[in-house]
């Protein structure tokens, strides 16, 4: 099988950059969300459409990013 419709988009969530990488394998869409710097995966979700996979990933990523504590320097 070959991955199709590979796409990356970057957005800001809870004040942090977030990257959503999605592609289709067979009939399933995969979406991986990472924190851009350093790019650690926060969640990987699947869906029957890109939008569904992205929304599911976004929800979990938002929850995780909201817990990041900024310290005073």
């Amino acid at each position, binding site marked *: *099988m*070959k*991955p*199709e419709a*590979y796409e990356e988009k970057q957005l800001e969530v809870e004040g*942090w*950059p977030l990257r959503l*990488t999605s*592609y289709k*394998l067979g009939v399933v869409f*995969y979406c*991986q969300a*990472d*924190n851009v*710097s*350093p*790019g*650690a*995966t*926060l969640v*990987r979700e699947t869906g029957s459409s890109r939008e569904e996979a992205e929304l599911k990933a976004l929800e979990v*990523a938002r929850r*995780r*990013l909201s*817990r*990041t*504590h*900024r*310290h005073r*320097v």
Partner: protein
Amino acid sequence: MTTYAHPEVLVTTSWLAEHLRDLKLRLVEVDVDVLAYGQGHIPGAIAWSWSTQLADQVRRDILPQAEFENLLANSGISNDSTLVLYGDNNNWFAAWAFWQAKIYGHRDVRILDGGRKKWLAEGRDLTTEVPSYLRASYRASAPDLCIRAFLPQVQEQSRNRLPLVDVRSPQEFAGEIVAPPGLPETAQRGGHIPSARNIPWGKAANDDGTFKSYDELKALYGDEGIDGTRPIITYCRIGERSSHSWFVLKYLLGYQNVSNYDGSWTEWGNLVGAPVEKGASGRSARAA
């Protein structure tokens, strides 16, 4: 354009596609995201987990020599195999595996330039079939500790103001955050090791995940005074991001004396009494 000092340690996606059936080649995927492999990987690739197969499971350490030998033998890798490593996130953890393979003296180990990202973006073949290989015979060399830095060396390097490259994000370097966004904090204090320069690891990669050119890399590090004329130590939070920068400095730029401090910030930032600098420019602060 100048070529890399050791271009033989990289393979392109097209080279790999043509050599997937080579009997001497063993392909291993090492990801940050351990679920990625199961959802589709390059045909013939096996997977190593960075957290369970590339680390001692009792004490904090890399794999002991006997376990490294066992891992490679069980993966069908012998001493004369061409080991090609690739992974997600610009080969972050593939570089970690490369570093360990070099510690134990594997001669022919290479990285797929662009890693999993480029392979997917190019729409190349994937499979969910997990291959099995006959157990091979593997004998590792005694660990080469010239490429691994331990705390006393790092302390001396910092005291002598010799090159320390902190490859974390600017926010981690400054102490604004103690761990990357969305990940648990794993140190008691934020900031960086005194005298360190901040050159985030991702700056060494292009948007497609491939490594930047020799000239771009030389300028990236040279602008911060890292030119290979003095010993260099790289570090990050747990030593993986910094193995990527170590790879760049050692193999792409060809600097002789480069070591990776895998204790990194989770060691230094938890040490009682260790000096810490905060802020982008390195403002001194008390450790506690």
